[in-house]
């Protein structure tokens, strides 16, 4: 397994691609999001797994995004996602609102190779009223009280590319995400899977009973790129924590387009130049 460069990975994602990306508590590849900004990606359709965070906001701010299919866009303790909010108001992006288990359900339907899966809840929510792709049916199985149950069927969602940041890849191209199994779900559900990692280690996780439960088989992984601290400012398992100060500073800067542009110049473009020196 030979890693490719981060920039080559970003170049392999075409404009308009549908990208599944986990949020800040779940191994986002902020490194790849920044590389997509540097390559000037356009028209990306982002899928929140099940919500969206920092990486989504910077991609929106940089004009890379046309649509977000998610349950929320948030910077957590740092508050609302400023570039998302601004772009939505300005009509530059479309949001398809969902609720967390609906995102999981649509991705699991794709993982299982079924055209749809049911989910309770939803009925009576305006989320449902605004999702013409979801269908309310009468369950052919009686409800626990014997009555006829109305339930919503959600179609399988097949992203073009799953993107996340794993702790490690091994010599066989397997990657290790620990308990963050939603990364496995999107790897299974998506047509392609691109993974940035902190490091590549010798050996094969599948041969090690301690490592294999947190591993995703190379079967699903198209390419790996090394990006040290590639989830930052989000956390990576027990390796590094969430950088609250960094996100608070971003939230302040990104209140305006100018502030965002300055932040980007330093943290997206400047950072790369510094790293290349």
């Amino acid at each position: 397994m030979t890693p490719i460069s981060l920039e080559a990975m970003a170049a392999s994602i075409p404009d308009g691609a549908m990208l599944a990306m986990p949020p800040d508590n779940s191994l986002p590849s902020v490194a790849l999001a920044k590389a997509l900004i540097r390559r000037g990606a356009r028209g990306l359709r982002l899928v929140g797994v099940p919500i969206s965070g920092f990486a989504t906001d910077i991609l929106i701010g940089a004009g890379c995004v046309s649509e977000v299919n998610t349950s929320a866009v948030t910077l957590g303790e740092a508050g609302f996602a400023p570039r998302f909010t601004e772009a939505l108001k300005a009509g530059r992006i479309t949001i398809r609102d969902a609720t967390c288990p609906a995102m999981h359900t649509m991705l699991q339907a794709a993982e299982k190779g079924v055209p749809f899966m049911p989910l309770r809840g939803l009925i009576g929510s305006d989320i449902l009223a605004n999702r013409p792709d979801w269908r309310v049916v009468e369950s052919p199985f009686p409800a626990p009280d014997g009555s006829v149950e109305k339930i919503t069927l959600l179609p399988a969602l097949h992203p073009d590319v799953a993107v996340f940041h794993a702790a490690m890849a091994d010599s066989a191209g397997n990657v290790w995400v620990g308990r963050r199994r939603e990364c496995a779900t999107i790897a299974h559900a998506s047509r392609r899977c691109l993974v940035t990692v902190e490091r590549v280690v010798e050996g094969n996780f599948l041969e090690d009973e301690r490592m294999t439960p947190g591993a995703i088989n190379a079967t699903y992984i198209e390419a790996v790129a090394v990006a040290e601290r590639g989830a930052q400012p989000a956390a990576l398992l027990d390796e590094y924590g969430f950088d609250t100060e960094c996100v608070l500073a971003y939230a302040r800067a990104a209140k305006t387009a100018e502030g965002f542009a300055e932040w980007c110049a330093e943290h997206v473009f400047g950072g790369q130049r510094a790293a290349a020196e």
Partner: protein
Amino acid sequence: MSAAAGYRSEELLAVCIARLIRAVPTRHIAVGAASPIPAAACWLCVKQGDPLRLSLLHKRSGNPFTDGSRELFDLTGQGRVDLFFLGGGEIDGQANLNLIGTGDWPGTGVRFPGSFGSAFMYYMAGRTILFREEHSPRVLVQRVAHISAPGTSEPGVYRRGHAQALVTGRCIFHFHPERARFSLASIHAGETLESIRAMTGFDFDVPDGVGETPPPSAAELALLQGPVCDEMLETYPEFCRRVWGRSRAA
């Protein structure tokens, strides 16, 4: 007001929520992306000795979920979550929640972050405590602009639970799903029925004998400022710094 009373507003609200938790037999609480105050309330119950299981979605080390982020929703779908917390950019008198925004769909006025798991958890948890610190006519409205999650459901829709109560910075309401209305339960110090009415956009019932919300006890405050804060430092560093002036050791 609160400072003069010897406790912070956040502490009173955590104690209010803890009392609501203890009012109903509760084995398992899940805490999602909610405000840190409900998390503090849960830890307070634990530190008071209740045999509660807490599943904290945003806990980093020792996170209880080993089946990915869907496990919280699966767990709740299984009926294993007795209590969940929700808030809302708008909450109306029928306990409908709006986490979407105001103006036309999808929030052309003010856009909120989004609905998170509300459109499932509100139906499938054993009960829900609604929490919103800001108590104003812009938050507590007659009718929400958009329903992220409805307060009650029509027959034929599987629903395991409803709102138990709504805790705000000014008072506590109880919710009555059979008539889809709130009733005033207690009024925090410094407020009156009239001030509550003025700041609430929806109608609510007022039973006889509504009194003042009891303040936190010295024991409750000691627990909050000590062992509860210890548990919360990793997940809610900003909150702990702001409320209790404490930071995590590097």
